């Protein structure tokens, strides 16, 4: 197989991997802040995609504006979910399984809500770079692949700066590591958790926006994406941001490689089997749960 074919596969895998990584990062953020495992992350991703559909494709707003608007809308939804729903339940000391069931109910709500609001037909929109293949030497690449990679790299860089340099970012990390100390330092934990949800939901929304050119949006897609994101989180290690990102990329690339080299119909099974093996053998993931790990 020629080099350019390999690169083609890698770029495809990297793309999906980065999208999984964003979703996985959101799950990791919420887990670190609250110990909650958000099963609805994939559906928030889908919802982000559909909201962008409305702002960008239907309302015909310019891409950057639609992008930011979608991020803002989804972020606010995440904030409200935290303040109004998850944080109160969490601070009541409810059994964690109850809260997990809550996120599952949320999944059902979002999936059926999307179905009700936007209908069942697959939807798609593209990036400002359009849909004409780009030629880089012998490599033929769809422009949205390049766009996605650029956006995510930028995003990760921003997050790095945010977590290391900004007061808010440092505070969020503090809450994740030592909630009681953070509390004593005057940090309002509930608000920080809400902001964490905001960020996590915003990241999911961005992932949804980026996935639309590649895979058409349907209301039910959240479950499958969620599962792959879970796989990434668990493989990378449940407390680790870098692990979530890295494992997301690994999952994306592994998926495409398996599909190409072995058989494409079982690529999902391949990932799920790996997930189950990790659950059984190394549930702490590749990186152990190091909450202080930077993005």
């Amino acid at each position, binding site marked *: 197989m020629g080099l350019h074919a390999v690169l083609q596969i890698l770029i495809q895998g990297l793309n999906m991997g980065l999208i999984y990584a964003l979703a996985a990062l959101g799950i990791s953020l919420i887990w670190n802040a609250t110990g909650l495992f958000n099963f609805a992350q994939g559906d928030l991703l889908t919802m982000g995609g559909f909201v962008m559909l409305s702002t960008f494709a239907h309302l015909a707003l310019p891409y950057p504006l639609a992008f930011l608007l979608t991020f803002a809308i989804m972020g606010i939804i995440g904030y409200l979910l935290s303040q109004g729903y998850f944080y109160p339940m969490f601070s009541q000391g409810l059994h964690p399984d109850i809260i997990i069931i809550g996120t599952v109910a949320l999944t059902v709500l979002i999936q059926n809500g999307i179905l009700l609001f936007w209908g069942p037909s697959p939807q798609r929109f593209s990036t400002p770079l359009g849909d004409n293949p780009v030629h880089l030497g012998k490599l033929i690449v769809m422009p949205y692949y390049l766009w996605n990679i650029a956006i995510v790299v930028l995003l990760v860089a921003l997050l790095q700066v945010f977590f290391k340099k900004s007061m808010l970012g440092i505070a969020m990390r503090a809450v994740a590591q030592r909630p009681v100390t953070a509390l004593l330092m005057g940090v309002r934990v509930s608000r920080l958790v809400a902001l964490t949800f905001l960020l996590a939901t915003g990241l999911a929304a961005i992932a949804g926006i980026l996935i639309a050119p590649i895979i058409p949006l349907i209301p039910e897609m959240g479950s499958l994406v969620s599962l792959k994101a879970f796989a990434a989180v668990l493989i990378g290690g449940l407390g680790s941001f870098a692990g979530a990102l890295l494992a997301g990329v690994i999952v994306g690339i592994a998926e495409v490689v398996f599909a190409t080299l072995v058989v494409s119909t079982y690529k999902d099974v391949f990932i799920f089997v790996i*997930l189950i093996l990790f659950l059984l053998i190394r549930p702490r993931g590749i990186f152990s749960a190091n909450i202080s790990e930077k993005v």
Partner: protein
Amino acid sequence: MTKPAYWKRMGLMAAVFLVLALVPLSGVPSYQFYILERGLQNLLVVLSLVILLGYTGQLSLGQAGLVAVGAYTYGILCVNYGLSPWLGLLAAPLMAGLVGVILGFPSFKLTGPFLVVNTIAFAEIVRILILNNEKLTGGPFGLNRIPTIVSGLRLYYFMLVVAWLAAVGTLRLSRSHIGLAFKAIREDEVAAESMGVHVRNYKLLAFVISAVLAGLSGVFFANLAGYLNPDSFTFNESSTYLLMVVLGGMSNVTGGILSSLAVTSLPEVLRFMARSRMVVYSLILLLLLRYTKVLQVENLRRWMRRLRAAPPQQGPAAGPGQAGDVAASSATAGRDKVTG
């Protein structure tokens, strides 16, 4: 469960089943009737979750996969191999039980979200396997012309009898030392193990029993639909089953019966709700979960006392074990909790 409590519940269940037995006589139109039958079929899965989740505390979102195993085993044996439906009825739950062993095997090690993810992954693997083995299962084109065990009204009564037996069995299980062991595992695994319960084996037992019930449900699904397609056994269905069992009170058999009938058949009665029924149900569930503390019976009683007495009573007393064990997740900066 004391004797009188047991018989009270049996009586309640019997009343519900009696009503169900009389429904065909009231001349319900056949489409509505079909939905009622589907409600009965779902009831078996709800019972499986009452045992697995309600009693043993194992959260599974993979029941649809087990239903699929039951349905397809029945379908394949009848259609591909021409076996008698009665044989299919026997073999399918057993097959599902076998798969349940595999599904339940990791359960001794996995808790919380890890267990849930494991069950979801398993169910997906089952679905994808079904989807991609066209020669055996018909793949995306489905499995057609599946024979029924008995036909027409007799199928309804047959299902009713089987559902009744399953419900009685579940209640008997709840009352027994096995049910007690399950509940001990749910409430406190360490204590259960220290009191002699072989937690690993009992968790496996719970998974197998629930798998057999789900497989049986699959047989009825095949009987009712006459046609199978992997799209009927997705995460969506698994979530819906979970919704039903939680709405019914998780470990409450009669509640589970009523909620499975309601969630399945109600929207057809209230036509306007048909398209948005899942939105409504999930919202109701979300609210119930959010206010689950408020709705607990003792808290309700306390509120009633407050409202009735002139000087307000003392605020909610924190009794031992009120909130249950919070998971070890570190970031608990919540309001104060309980003693003990």
